């Protein structure tokens, strides 16, 4: 991954809120990140941490109301997606940005055969004729490892197994050769042996096609095996961001450190007791003025109540380029 390359996707200060009867929910709060060409960025967080909402905000997939993208810039190929008209945005979705969702059964249309669903973006975005699109669709199915691709174009989603459906979803997302592929928990609904197949497939496709990927997951194991860089989200904010090895070897944020300890290992020492993060994730109502993790943090002090920490560099590189963390506490100061 060339360090100096222009990012394909650059997100700055994204803020998304939901208006509800109970007041505003600040689901995404000043999230900034970028994606370099060919890079795989892992996004980790629990449910409600804002990881999916962030990605859906980027390309206008959230219903408004209740959602509202209040601030920020999303630069893709020099254009700010947040300023585009709905019509222009539609051209970006599918053509420039591919999306793979968690549950392939609910994201495929049950009444059309998969051939139609793969051909739709080809005809719409690439201006292909039906015959061209059909040839390309068969190629795509073969690319994602579905045997007997030409014949399977006529099959309906229910005739595929879960893993195969997810392969179809990936084929659709890749149809127009997007610059960015956003995969939202693509293997969460699958069994581990099938998950291993899909991860293998993505690794292969990356080498062949070289697109940049955002991979959202709550599974730290999946991230460890596939990501170049990791962004940890908590309470609608980025709490830590680092190259994958640095994050696992030297986690800085108390949340990341605790999270890594709560997951039992398959091969290492077996702990007598699991480490626990006490308490519950925050509710995100009201403007965030304090650290979202303070109530569950072992190192929280007065400043954490008074001031929401901003991301600061850990390794001397500019924030976003190397290892950074949003926390008032630091392990070095505590240990030294």
């Amino acid at each position, binding site marked *: 991954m060339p360090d100096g390359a222009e990012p394909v996707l650059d997100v700055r200060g994204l803020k998304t809120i939901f208006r509800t009867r109970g007041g505003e929910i600040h689901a995404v709060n000043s999230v900034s990140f970028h994606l370099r060409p060919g890079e795989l960025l892992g996004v980790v967080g*629990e*449910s409600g941490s804002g990881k999916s909402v962030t990605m859906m905000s980027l390309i206008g997939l959230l219903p408004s109301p209740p959602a509202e993208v209040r601030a920020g810039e999303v630069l893709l190929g020099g254009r700010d997606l947040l300023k585009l008209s709905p019509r222009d945005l539609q051209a970006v979705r599918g053509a420039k940005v591919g999306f793979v969702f968690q549950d392939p059964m609910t994201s495929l249309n049950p009444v059309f055969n998969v051939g139609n669903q793969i051909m739709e973006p080809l005809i719409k975005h690439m201006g292909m004729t039906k015959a061209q699109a059909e040839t390309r669709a068969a190629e795509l199915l073969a690319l994602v490892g579905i045997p007997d691709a030409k014949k399977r174009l006529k099959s309906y989603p229910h005739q595929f*197994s879960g*893993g*195969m459906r997810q392969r179809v979803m990936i084929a659709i997302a890749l149809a127009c050769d997007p610059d960015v592929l956003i995969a939202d928990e693509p293997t969460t609904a699958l*069994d*581990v*042996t*099938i*998950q*291993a*197949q899909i*991860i*293998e497939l993505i690794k292969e496709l990356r080498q062949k096609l070289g697109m940049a990927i955002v991979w959202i997951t*709550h*599974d*730290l*194991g*999946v*991230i*460890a*095996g596939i990501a170049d860089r990791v962004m940890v989200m908590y309470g609608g904010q980025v709490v830590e961001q680092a190259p*994958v*090895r640095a994050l*696992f070897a030297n986690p800085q944020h108390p949340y990341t450190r*605790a*999270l*890594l300890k*709560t*997951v*039992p*290992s*398959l*091969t290492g020492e*077996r*702990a007598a*007791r*699991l*480490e*626990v*993060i*006490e308490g*519950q*994730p925050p509710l995100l109502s009201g403007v965030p003025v304090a650290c979202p993790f303070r109530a569950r943090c072992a190192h929280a002090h007065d400043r954490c109540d008074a001031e929401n920490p901003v991301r600061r560099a850990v390794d001397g590189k500019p924030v976003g380029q190397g290892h950074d963390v949003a926390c008032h506490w630091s392990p070095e100061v505590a240990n030294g």
Partner: protein
Amino acid sequence: MADGGRIPPGQPLVQVRDLKMHFPIYAGILRRKVGAVKAVDGVSFDIMAGETLGLVGESGCGKSTVGRALLRLYELTGGSVVIDGEDVATLSSDALRRKRPTMQMVFQDPQASLNPRMTVAAIIGEPLDEHTDWPAEKKTARVYELMDQVGLNRRFANRYPHEFSGGQRQRIGIARALALNPKFIVCDEPIAALDVSIQAQVVNLLEDLQDRLGLTYLFISHDLSMVRHIADRVAVMYLGQIAELSPREALYARPLHPYAKALLSAVPEADPALEATRQRIILTGDVPSPANPPKGCNFCTRCPVVMPVCREVEPKLIEVETGRFVACHLVSPNNAGGHASPGAEVREHNQQGENA
């Protein structure tokens, strides 16, 4: 045992023999029976008093069906389930009702298994209403005691399930399962619906309760790392049958069945350096339909080391090393890896049904 149970730790509390659970398939205008989904097809194992047996496998392998069949939430197709000396499979409905307090279940989805119109106190107290004739004060006292045990604040007794988070709801489900002082609890994916940081809380709670109350668990899960943490022995299921049943450390250090090997190798580890060097066995294809399992070994369609005999003869679950049971033609007591003591008695653990 908290209440002076008859079975001492280390002796089997639950003995399952050749358990079969087939669900009929009806088709045509007359809805004739045209076949059966063999969800569980000849499963045998013991669970010792005070131990946790982990039951792992992929979706559709029949692990949840085993858990439900053990508590006779289904009428069994065949086999026996002896819990604490009584065969649950053949008990009359009156006797079964008297038996129910000793065996309970914690469900996967705490949202779906709690009645949204009942308060927490009513949910936890319902087993007491059904099975005891205690006066109201005694029931209330017991409900409070249970809430303390599972770490729920007593002040929340009159709230409704929707006011709680997922982890707290699972605590309500656990308190309800504990209400009648059971000996045996089936935990069916109790943490699958919870966030990582909450999973550890619930698992620690289950372990504490086991220590304190001498409970015996069947812990059903697809999360192999968590099963390694909580279980003493682990059974790996594939397509309605047990592929391997081994003590925890032995299984994770050196799985013997090819499916167990593939399954363990597929689990991602939260360690990038380790992930970069790991050799993965990627299984091709999908699990066959349990309505139409392959002839011979049920894993023969995906097995990376399949032999001709596997497509003809169904392997039996036999003890290949002390305490390790494997159903595979490749693994026999002689070649399991040299850990079996010479002359170790080979006994057939499982009379699996004849091939259909």
